[in-house]
């Protein structure tokens, strides 16, 4: 893992001291809210529906046990004893008081964490594959380049007041778990003719105008990454629409100018930016890579795992759903579900965070990850330790065996917390998870991604859910639109809207009808929902959701 240099530590101390003084001036009445708001947003502090919210960056979703314990301590001391992990691999504290925020930021700085650029029209927290450095299918670990991008983009003087926010994701695996095609810039690490490089995807994004990103460069040599990205952001910073915030993201710029024209502008600009990079960036990348050396994997007997798998059906069920293949022999990647049926997706209590930190330290080479799907990952666990790990997780409600299943739902905070929301998301997720748990069907249903957003900004990634749900305010009543057939992987696809929305009371039965239709249609239990949908299209699902329309047409 990356460890802060003295430069990082000093920079953070200076920023935190600045913000402490700004908060003091606001409380004393020497700054108006209009003056204070941009300052607090630069430091990740929002004012939401019921309280302030502090969004803390977890760069590329990676943290160690000490950092996780600090998050638990912050939640216990200054919040209501929990935190909420987000779809940008961050954590949000929903209840801080203004006067406490400088102390919270100082506490974060003790473990090399901050809330800088988690808001505002800047380059946001760079996200990456949550299985980075562990996945069996990985070409290269994306975390060093994500860290390089963090250092390059943090406080970058040219990119502090851009047309809109800007999000970058990196994957080092051909199986895209970082949703790179729905980002302003998506990077896919490649190797060609023995050379390291990137496929650069630009102009993806969800929100009110969902777009799948387009390839602007199919192989960018590693050494050109920062000058090329600087060229992209620089071009957009100049020609991006500042007249209309809804048209300001780079996806609209690419759409309006066309990818070929954007590529030409970027190539022209790249000629200039390249001169300003002397190779120190590549040298820094090499130094950063040393921080991410693989842990010392051990070889030991796998018998305890095989024994527990054979004898304990609860362990077996968890192992079948929550483990992923690891690149090292005898190891597995463990996904800890923060989606216990009926609970708030992505929430973890202080006690749960401490337990996960302890388990990472004991069994997981002191590493944890946050996934964009709002779960916690222990990337390196030897299989012989899995029975003990599972037993420990069970004690604190963290052993739910539902990763990738219908109850493993992404849900944005929605109107339960968010000031922008037009409807609630979390209670819908809770009801769906509970309904399918009650009938014990989710393992039979198999892999199915439900993603719920409480407004058109799409923080819940509903466009790329197999079943996407968008909560809206229709004449003062919560109303939920359904999209089907979205895909968040390397085959990214925006889902198809099925038709008129459903009320809060109708949405769970509607999801049940969709699932029943899928179960009727699938050729066998191995044909997953997305495959069935690709085969049949929208029509049978639409007929199931709107039987009255069919009757009227007959």
């Amino acid at each position, binding site marked *: 893992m990356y460890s802060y240099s003295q430069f990082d530590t000093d920079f953070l101390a200076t920023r935190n001291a600045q913000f402490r003084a700004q908060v003091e001036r*606001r409380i004393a009445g020497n700054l108006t809210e209009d003056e204070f708001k941009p300052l607090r947003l630069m430091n990740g502090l929002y004012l939401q529906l019921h309280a302030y919210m502090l969004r803390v960056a977890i760069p590329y979703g990676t943290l160690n046990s000490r950092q996780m314990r600090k998050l638990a301590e912050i939640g216990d001391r200054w919040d209501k004893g929990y935190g909420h992990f987000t779809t940008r691999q961050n954590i949000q504290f929903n209840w801080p008081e203004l006067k406490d925020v400088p102390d919270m930021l100082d506490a974060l700085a003790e473990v090399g964490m901050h809330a800088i650029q988690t808001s505002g029209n800047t380059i946001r927290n760079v996200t990456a594959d949550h299985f980075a450095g562990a996945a069996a299918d990985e070409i290269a670990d994306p975390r060093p380049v994500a860290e390089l991008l963090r250092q390059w983009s943090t406080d970058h003087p040219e990119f502090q007041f851009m047309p809109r926010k800007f999000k970058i994701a990196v994957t080092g695996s051909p199986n895209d778990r970082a949703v790179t095609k729905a980002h302003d810039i998506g990077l896919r690490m490649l190797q060609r003719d023995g050379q390291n490089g990137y496929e650069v995807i630009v102009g993806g994004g969800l929100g009110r105008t969902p777009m799948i990103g387009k390839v602007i460069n199919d192989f960018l040599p590693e050494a050109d990454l920062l000058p090329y990205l600087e060229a992209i952001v620089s071009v957009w910073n100049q020609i991006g629409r500042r007249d209309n915030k809804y048209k300001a993201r780079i996806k609209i710029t690419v759409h309006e100018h066309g990818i070929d024209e954007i590529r030409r502008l970027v190539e022209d600009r790249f000629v200039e930016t390249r001169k300003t990079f002397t190779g120190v960036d590549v040298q820094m990348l090499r130094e950063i890579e040393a921080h991410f050396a693989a842990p010392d994997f051990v070889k030991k007997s796998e018998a305890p795992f095989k024994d527990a798998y054979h004898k304990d059906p609860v362990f077996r069920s968890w192992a079948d759903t929550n483990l992923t293949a690891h690149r090292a022999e005898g190891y597995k990647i463990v996904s800890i579900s923060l989606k216990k049926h009926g609970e708030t997706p992505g929430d973890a209590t202080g006690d749960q965070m401490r337990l996960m930190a302890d388990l990472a330290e004991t069994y997981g080479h002191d590493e944890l990850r946050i996934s964009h799907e709002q779960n916690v990952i222990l990337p390196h666990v030897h299989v012989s330790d899995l029975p003990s790990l599972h037993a420990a997780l069970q004690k604190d409600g963290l052993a739910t065996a539902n990763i990738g299943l219908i109850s493993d739902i992404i849900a944005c905070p929605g109107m339960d917390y968010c000031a922008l929301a037009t409807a609630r998301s979390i209670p819908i997720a809770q009801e769906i998870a509970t309904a399918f748990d009650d009938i014990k069907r989710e393992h039979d249903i198999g892999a199915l991604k439900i993603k719920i957003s409480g407004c058109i900004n799409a923080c819940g990634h509903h466009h790329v859910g197999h079943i996407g749900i968008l909560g809206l305010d229709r004449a003062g009543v919560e109303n939920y639109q359904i999209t089907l057939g979205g895909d968040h992987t390397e085959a990214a696809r925006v889902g198809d809207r099925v038709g008129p929305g459903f009320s809060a009371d109708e949405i769970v039965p509607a999801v049940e009808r969709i699932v029943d239709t899928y179960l009727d249609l699938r050729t066998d239990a191995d044909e997953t929902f997305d495959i069935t949908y690709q085969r049949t299209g929208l029509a049978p699902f639409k007929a199931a959701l709107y039987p009255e329309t069919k009757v009227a047409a007959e």
Partner: protein
Amino acid sequence: MPKTFTPKVVTANHLLKGDVIYQTATGWSRRLDEAEVLTDEADADLRLIEASQQVDVVVGAYLADIALENGIPAPTHFREDFRATGPSNYAHGKQVELG
């Protein structure tokens, strides 16, 4: 024809705590049922200006529609309902603190 003025309350977030507050005849309350009900448009505009000037107490003051139920103000929109009662995903926040 001018639009009929419907009853309103002044609401905002508290600067220090960030939570939802309502203007009363003499100050601020965390309870909607203690809010001052404004039935006259000119009076409401004036009370909103007074609230907005308290920059070291409140943030983002605005007029919210309410309905009177037995003389007690109640929300007319679900957003204001959640602001008055707190998150609905489980019992915490305002619904617990106000009892």
